[in-house]
């Protein structure tokens, strides 16, 4: 029995980070023997060991590829063996690993154009290069800074080329596949008011290009807060801006039109104005679209070249009108004086119920009322409603006309429904045909049997007026309404009665207007 003997064959298959060790066991001394390699390197100066192997036979040659070496320093390698009688270390081999091969450098590229647009949540950047290449973008939120490299040598400062430092966060590959002239990058952004920086790098023909692009940046501003101009009198079709504009009047006013909500960053129409008078401004505002949001700014100047004075803080507004309060419901009863008109057949009472037993002695108007025995005519009644309880300037949302009606056609002639009915308002110009027979007369049980009856009982009707007639509901003063048919159109408007109907009226049957409106603030 004796110590084993081994032999270091050598090192082969050198790369910049690995080497193949080879050793041979010459004699195991008649005992079970282990074999391994020892080496040292750059990172750890003491000897390292490979795994140890039991020797199956003698002689036995073993090769092992060791990774994790460095080409920056020299290495020692030797073969070791062991059995119960002792260790044996063979000769030491010194070797150096080759330097890694530098990859072939690709051609440089130059960015010729580069511009980007904001999309929905992303920033699309388009670039063109002078050669075909494959690019990727390194994106970060920190501004690249310059690092002046200074080397102190024996107290003397040596200034080297400046070095740019860039902290990048994520990498975006171009959308195009392969080398191309045009390059598209879709860069997601997350935060408003944060500048994103990015630069482009890449390869040409599969080889890394030494070139980079300059630093590009983009910054998404938050949406401007839409505020209401302290204005009054703004309606859907016509508006004029008071308040602040009037204070600055005489200084010149610019209006800038904003076309869509998502273009407010820099896409404005050309500047219009300045307006030197309220009339000029009013004429311009008449052209505005109520569906569009606008932006205006004021500058103080008497000069045509007003831009050099800068813009004031811009205000945004729509032409929807001045701010209104919450919606309220107003019940506007018929007021004391009842208007009468002339007509022929229909009998409509907006005022009250029991007029047909009135022994009528006279009238302020000719032939508008018949006597007790010939009571089939009461028509073209006009009633004045107390809409003066609605604050002036209110925005009317809905109007419901509630009244009690009866129809007589005792004398024959055209039946109910043969002629379209009209609502007439204050001006009596007979132009507003806003209701048809079916819309006004809600008498289903009678209509089922007699579609064109000669006679109807009293019915309580509630007629929702069309929004197109809201403009005739006067706020702050009383409103006159009449129901006529087309044969009642006369050249003269109805005149005054003396209000005697009211003396017979009962409140429960009194006609009224139910107006839902928002008062101005």
């Amino acid at each position, binding site marked *: 029995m004796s110590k084993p003997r081994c032999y270091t064959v050598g090192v082969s298959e050198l790369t910049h980070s690995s080497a193949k060790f080879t050793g041979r066991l010459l004699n195991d001394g008649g005992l079970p023997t282990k074999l391994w390699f020892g080496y040292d390197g750059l990172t750890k100066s003491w000897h390292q060991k490979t795994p140890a192997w039991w020797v199956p036979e003698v002689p036995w040659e073993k090769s092992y590829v060791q990774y994790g070496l460095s080409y920056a320093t020299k290495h020692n390698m030797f073969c070791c063996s062991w059995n119960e009688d002792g260790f044996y270390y063979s000769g030491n081999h010194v070797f150096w690993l080759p330097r890694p091969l530098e990859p072939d450098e690709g051609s*440089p590229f130059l960015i*010729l*154009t580069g511009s980007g647009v904001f999309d929905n949540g992303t920033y699309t950047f388009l670039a063109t290069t002078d050669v075909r290449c494959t690019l990727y973008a390194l994106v970060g939120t920190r501004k*690249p800074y*310059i690092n002046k490299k200074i080397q102190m040598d024996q107290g*003397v400062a040596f200034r080297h080329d400046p070095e*740019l*430092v860039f902290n990048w966060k994520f990498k975006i590959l171009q959308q195009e596949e392969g080398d191309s002239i045009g390059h598209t990058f879709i860069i997601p952004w997350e935060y408003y008011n944060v500048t994103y920086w990015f630069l482009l790098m890449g390869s040409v023909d599969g080889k890394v290009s030494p070139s*980079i*692009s300059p630093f590009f940046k983009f910054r998404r501003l938050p949406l401007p807060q839409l505020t209401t101009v302290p204005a009054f009198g703004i309606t859907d079709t016509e508006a004029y801006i008071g308040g602040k504009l009037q204070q600055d009047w005489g200084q010149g006013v610019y209006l800038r039109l904003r076309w869509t909500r998502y273009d407010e960053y820099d896409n404005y129409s050309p500047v219009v104005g300045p307006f030197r008078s309220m009339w000029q401004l009013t004429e311009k505002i008449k052209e505005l679209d109520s569906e569009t949001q606008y932006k205006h700014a004021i500058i103080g100047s008497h000069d045509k070249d007003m831009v050099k004075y800068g813009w004031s803080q811009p205000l945004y507004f729509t032409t929807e009108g001045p701010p209104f309060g919450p919606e309220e419901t107003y019940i506007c009863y018929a007021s004391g004086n009842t208007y009468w008109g002339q007509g022929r057949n229909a009998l409509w009472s907006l005022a009250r119920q029991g007029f047909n037993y009135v022994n009528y002695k006279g009238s302020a108007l000719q032939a508008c009322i018949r006597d007790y025995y010939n009571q089939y005519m009461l028509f073209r009644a006009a009633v004045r409603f107390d809409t003066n309880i609605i604050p002036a300037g209110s925005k009317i949302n809905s109007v419901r006309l509630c009244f009690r009606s009866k129809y007589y056609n005792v004398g024959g002639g055209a039946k109910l429904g043969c002629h379209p009915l009209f609502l007439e308002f204050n001006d009596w110009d007979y132009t507003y045909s806003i209701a048809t027979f079916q819309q006004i007369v809600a008498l289903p049980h009678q209509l089922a049997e007699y579609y064109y009856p000669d006679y109807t009982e009293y019915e309580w009707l509630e007629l929702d007026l069309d929004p197109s007639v809201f403009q005739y509901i006067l706020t702050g003063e009383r409103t006159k309404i009449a129901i006529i048919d087309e044969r009642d159109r006369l050249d003269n408007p109805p005149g005054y009665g003396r209000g005697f109907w009211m003396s017979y009226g009962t409140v429960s049957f009194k006609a009224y207007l139910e107006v839902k409106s928002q008062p101005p603030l």
Partner: protein
Amino acid sequence: MAKLSGMPAAHIIQSYKKILDFYEWKGIPVCRRWPRSPGRLRNPAVMATSARFSYISSQPKNLSTDLITAYHDIPSNVGWTWKDFMVSFWFKGRKRVSLIPPE
């Protein structure tokens, strides 16, 4: 190049114009032969670089306004113009910029 014990007087330097070149190197006054142009035939690598430099020097007129603005916006307080950055980034931009990856 020869090290000198001290920089000679200005009129002496002037008298050796186009013969000797006096300057300071690392704070040491030195003297060398007056530099001469090597002529047209240069080292092949230098000639190749010259051709590339000629190409990149002709490119600024092809750049868009946005690109020029981007070169202008490069943070610099070392007296480089935007054309300097353009040429430098084109030649060896990867070595000019130290990229710090995300942690």
